[in-house]
């Protein structure tokens, strides 16, 4: 019994640790400054910018990540292992190093051409999306691959034999069967993009009302000892986080079929 209590005790203490952190925020909640900070145009802007940028980054990660995940899950090809390992780069690389690499890239001749002829990334909103994309693309591909791995290729084989092309089999059979896992991957990637700080601040800067996402706003607010604003933003992020985690739980919970 002692063993059991020790183990459960450890789990409960982690819970208390995080709960304590969140509850301690409420010590400062409720003053006039709190509401002012919440309704300040810059705060509203940060929230909106964060939601839009994270959604865009997730969209791009999905567009490239889903086919990549499928390829990694279904096919054997030359260099597959190297490719698979590279997906972990953003996970082991410090975000600030990733952001710095992006910044350096845009100072190479190729990067400069892209900026001149195409889109401006450095210190601009597209830079936020790119930095977040860089952070989550590998992760989301990995997550989606895991959910595709669970779907037997035999379903597609049968669909093909019954007359579906590989594209049709993909969207009529594989996607519907894997969608819970795919949705969970997307939600987690989105949440990670939303909270991204290091790469974003390095590439896009921290200009209030221009490139200041929520995590960046927390940093600047804290740096200027604006505790009310800091807490407002943290609470909003926490709420978003809890909602997404709940969303993931919902999709991963009971299965509709079998």
């Amino acid at each position: 019994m002692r063993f059991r209590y020790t183990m459960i005790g450890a789990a409960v203490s982690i819970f208390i640790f995080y709960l304590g952190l969140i509850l301690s925020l409420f010590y400062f909640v409720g003053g006039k400054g709190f509401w002012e900070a919440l309704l300040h145009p810059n705060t509203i802007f940060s929230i909106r910018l964060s939601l839009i940028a994270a959604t865009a980054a997730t969209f791009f990660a999905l567009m490239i990540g889903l086919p990549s995940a499928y390829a990694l899950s279904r096919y054997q090809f030359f260099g597959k292992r190297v490719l698979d390992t590279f997906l972990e780069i953003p996970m082991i690389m410090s975000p600030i190093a990733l952001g710095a690499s992006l910044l350096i890239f845009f100072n190479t001749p190729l990067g400069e051409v892209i900026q001149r002829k195409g889109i401006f990334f450095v210190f601009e909103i597209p830079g936020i999306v790119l930095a977040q994309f860089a952070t989550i693309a590998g992760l989301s591909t990995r997550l989606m691959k895991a959910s595709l791995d669970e779907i037997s290729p035999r379903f597609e084989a049968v669909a093909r034999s019954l007359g579906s092309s590989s594209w049709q089999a993909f969207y009529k059979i594989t996607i519907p069967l894997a969608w819970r896992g795919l949705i969970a991957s997307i939600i987690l990637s989105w949440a990670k993009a939303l909270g991204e700080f290091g790469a974003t601040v390095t590439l896009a800067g921290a200009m209030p009302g221009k490139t200041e996402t929520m995590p960046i706003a927390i940093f600047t607010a804290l740096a200027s000892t604006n505790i009310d604003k800091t807490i407002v933003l943290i609470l909003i992020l926490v709420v978003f986080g809890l909602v997404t985690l709940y969303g993931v739980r919902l999709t991963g919970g009971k299965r509709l079929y079998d």
Partner: protein
Amino acid sequence: MIRVEGLTILFESFKIMDLDIEIQEERFHFLLGPTGSGKTLILESIMGLRKPKKGRIWIGEREVQDLPPEQREISYVPQDLALFPHLKVKDNILYGIKARNFDPKVYEEYVQALIQVMKVDHLLERYPGNLSGGEKKRVALLRALAPKPKLLLLDEPLAGLDPSIKVEIQQLLKLLHSSFHTTTLCVTHDFEEAYVLGDGITICIDGRIEQEGKRDDVFLRPKSRKVAQFLGAKNLYRARVLKKEESLQRWVLGVNGLQFLMPLGRCRDPIEVGGEVDLFIRPEEVMILREGKPLKDSLKRNVFKGEILDIINRGRYHTVYVQTMQGKIPFEISIPNYAFRNLNLSMGKTIKVALREESLWVMS
């Protein structure tokens, strides 16, 4: 006619070389081989999911080896069935007709007939997850047959089923084939399955075809020791051809000093005096003699005395292990239960056995 010619597959440790299969229209053909001999790879190549190293495939007049699976008109029922869990039974069944953009009205009558034969009308609105093993099998077969394929591929259709369901599905396959005549290629490792259902049989061992032909031809007249062993043959001996008795139209074979008289026709390839051959004695064609009972002339030629070493009750029949007095050759005999009761056999008892002429088969 379905023709596979020179199919060669090299995949991981599997090596399938120059496989030829020919299936006449409307026939139920079996590809029989031990578990793990790459049978599924062969199916996947015929279907177009795997690109073989080389080989040509004809479906009727059409050469299909370069076509994608969806254009080959081959339906496939894998061992795990792969019923689409997110679609109702009804939509599973109609999947092929919709995917091929066929007019559902044209197929309505045919699909209804299939549904009746398969007895799945009460399942149409359910999801596959709630069906029993036998029901799932029926739905999977129906789904495969609905778009009227030119060839139906079945991968171990009776593996992993309870014995009662196995019989049910076996009968269903038989009924389906006799009602709808779909040309079928079925891979399995179970000879009994092939024997009950198959018109023709191809035996593939270690990636090579060892024998093909009509089922009785394969079962009763195996080409080689390898085939005989795979078919579960008991009583295989290395024998020497001692002489030819022209007057009796018999070969005289010797095993350990014991002589067997075998009719001339009981071998596929020519044999000659002095040569070594594999002698196969079919356990179910060996008789245990009752004392005092007169013997037919045809049985008198191969009568041996032996001692019972062991008796095993296999439920539906008995297996008696005998060792001959002369030559000390161990023998396995299968006898029906009623015969076993009449014979009053026990371990250690000395008995006389007689070989029917059908029991002998020689492979050179």
